[in-house]
């Protein structure tokens, strides 16, 4: 299997993965970072969202070998103020979509530190939550700095 080098959360990993392997699969199964969840595995729900050079992308349909840039997963954001903001605002129920929500939200507030409600809705629309925590996510992002 061809070898691949990935920088994830500022750490360099050298792994073996077939060309068809998704970044999500490599993160979860090979590197062992299971915070990134796979819920649909075809790019429709956003649960698998990670950042590549700060840009939110869907790791389940990103080929691991085609990644160009540094990957940030939820593990790399564990101390981001958004985490406490989500907890405070109760922006989590079952929690399966939540890591992806935080990754998208972190990119949003990096680009727009004080987003409006419309901006939040526009930028978070690719992260589906079946439990319906959306109003809480809005609040978490509006008050992310605490």
């Amino acid at each position, binding site marked *: 299997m061809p070898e691949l080098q990935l920088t994830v959360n500022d750490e360099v990993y050298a792994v073996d993965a077939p060309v068809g392997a998704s970044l999500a699969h490599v993160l979860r199964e090979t590197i062992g970072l299971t915070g990134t969840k796979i819920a649909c*595995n075809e790019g429709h729900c956003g649960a698998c969202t990670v950042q590549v050079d700060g840009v939110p992308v869907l790791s389940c349909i990103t080929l691991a070998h085609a990644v160009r840039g540094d990957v940030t997963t939820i593990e790399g954001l564990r101390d981001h103020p958004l985490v406490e903001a989500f907890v405070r605002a109760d922006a989590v129920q079952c929690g399966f979509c939540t890591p992806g929500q935080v990754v998208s939200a972190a990119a949003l507030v990096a680009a727009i530190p004080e987003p409006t409600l419309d901006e939040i809705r526009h930028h978070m*629309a690719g992260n589906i*939550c079946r439990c319906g925590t959306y109003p*809480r996510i809005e609040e978490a992002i509006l008050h992310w700095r605490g």
Partner: protein
Amino acid sequence: MARLIRTEKEVEGRFEEVWLVVEEDPLTQWPAGPLAVVGRDAVRKDGRERVRGEARYTADVKLPGMLHAVLLRSPYAHARVTRIDFTRALARQGVRAALGPGEANGLVEEPEYTGQPVAAIAADTLEQARAALAEIDVEWEELEAVLDPEEAVARELFTMETVRSERGDYERALAEADVVVEGTYRTSVVLHNSMETHQAVCEWIGDTLHAYVSTQYLWGVRDDLAKELGVPGDKVRVVCEFMGGGFGSKNGADEQTYAAAVLAKKTGRPVRCALSRREENTAAGNRNATIQKLTVGARSDGTIVALGGEFINAVGASGWSAMTEGPLTMLYACDNVRTVRYGAKINTPPMKAFRAPGFVEGTFGLECLIDELAEKLELDPLELRRRNYADSNDGKPFSSKNLMQCYDLAQSHWDRRDEVRARSDSTWKHGVGIASQIWFGGGGPPSYAWTRVGSDGRVTVVTAMQDIGTGTRTAMAQIAAEELGVPLDRVDVVLGDTARGPYATLSAGSSTTPSIGPAVRAAAADAKRQIVEIAAQRHHLEERVISIEDGVVKSADGNLSTPLEQLLELLEDAQILGKGARGPNPTGMSVLTFGIHVVEVAVDVETGEVRVDRVFAAHDVGRIVNALGARSQVEGGIIQGIGHTLSEVRLHDPETGRILTTTLDAYRMPTIADVPEIVAEFVDVPDEHLTNLGSKGLGEPPIVPIAAAIANAIRDATGADVHELPISREEMLRALEAAKQKERRGAPAAV
């Protein structure tokens, strides 16, 4: 004191008479309103680990040597497997075992819906297992498939007996009514689509099965697996500490659970069997479609004198027929009611309980019908509901009912309608609609809990319960903290493992808080009693003067004031153990939940777009334990309901019965951009007859009335009657056109 009683147990609206061992519960309820901890906002105990991705779901369980299993599913709506041969499949690289029809519960020889599993294959990797499916040699004999529920009813093809109910003299009352309104309402198949798909990882260690299952009912799965494998219940351990949503679809073991367990036995290796999202959209359960033909007769003063309904539940190939007639028979005071409910057997993937099964569908039909009655009577819809308020459930008193208070809370929001309507212009019409909610939510025995108090004064609640995302851990911690008199951050909760902790009921039917909550309180009270006994002995006081407040053990005269950990340091590494059980339900009473939604919508009358702008929700569910979590439940239920109201529908090919909406871009759930302003309020008055807590469940009530309230708001805005869910643009435009035709013919416009 334990005793054996015969009682009626209700889950998801289904009633059964059961024998139960119950313990009496001598505790008196706390006073109403927010207390020190209970009734206040509490952030989730396990929030941080979920947010950070540290929580381990079944999807994250990885065991050494684990195999991956996939299911071979029928491509036909009805067929028989006449021949199946695994030789080629088993010869493939990495393939370790296969199961054919009958070799595990759920693998059938005669599939009755597309997607029904007939076989299972396990291999080293998921890709190998999937590739091997194509190498299984199967011959099918296609059989006749019925896909239309009305055809099934005509041919008397049912999944269970037809249910008829009658009270009073329906025919006569209808004949004497001043006004009669009839309507046919249809709801569609919608899918749970929890973010974590159905899955299980099974491993045998010696003669014990360890099953990691994404489930709402640990003990149910334990029981199911024990029976399937012919082993004692204690030889099955079921673990689920975090699960990614269920909504009723994960109430027991399914094909993937059984296949994983049997394959693990066969291969001697752990086996994961996880559904893909496509399988989840196909054959993991659903809320069945319904056709409801409803009639209401009333006097001109608004008194409802007759209610009738014919309900067809398009159940699917198997399954139970939910009580779609429930709201019609229970919500309003009406002496003359007649209903018939059919469970149509059709060759489509069958229903599973989905957040208030039957009542969501039935409330849509009923509450739209009631509003159409209000229009015909030229009566305010809220006033009409007040006038027909039921003080009992067909003669049976309620344990508590504060629906009138909900109506009062809603009044000021309902009074906004002139202001809302005034926003209308030539394109966007604005309107307001309401709908009432009735549902169960009393829970019941048995459920048990322990509380351990250590020498550091920290408390651990232990129960083999599951937290499906509703915040069970936090609510249980609050109850224990309140009873014991310690700060919330000193309480931890251990749950999710049948090997660790006593029996607890399933997390469905809005039964969690009202079932396990009282058990936790009883366990905490037991521990407190022991602590008080110790303090009394150590400080030569009478027990009755001792209390614990904010983690400090005090005497009434103030002489004793010692931190709990100081009192208990003598324990060293031992502990105080308290034990509690859920007491019996009140007898001879109906334990129900109530509420009302007031919804503001805007409709683009040229394109059929519906926008939900605002929802006010008032719910009566007895004592609120976690105020923050309760608001989240209401928001979540409303948002999920907006999905089945506007954009979610499972479609199948009319020729083959195959499911077409298998992906999440075709099956469209609400995004954050679809969310209205939501204001949630609670009556928050304890049900004085119900347990030591007075709390009912809140998981389902918020999803029950939202579709009807939206439909009624649409009528208010546009005069159009929508009679079908989802209210697609096609349906909205049809209804608008019909309203225009009605107006041209001179029929009265909407009030």
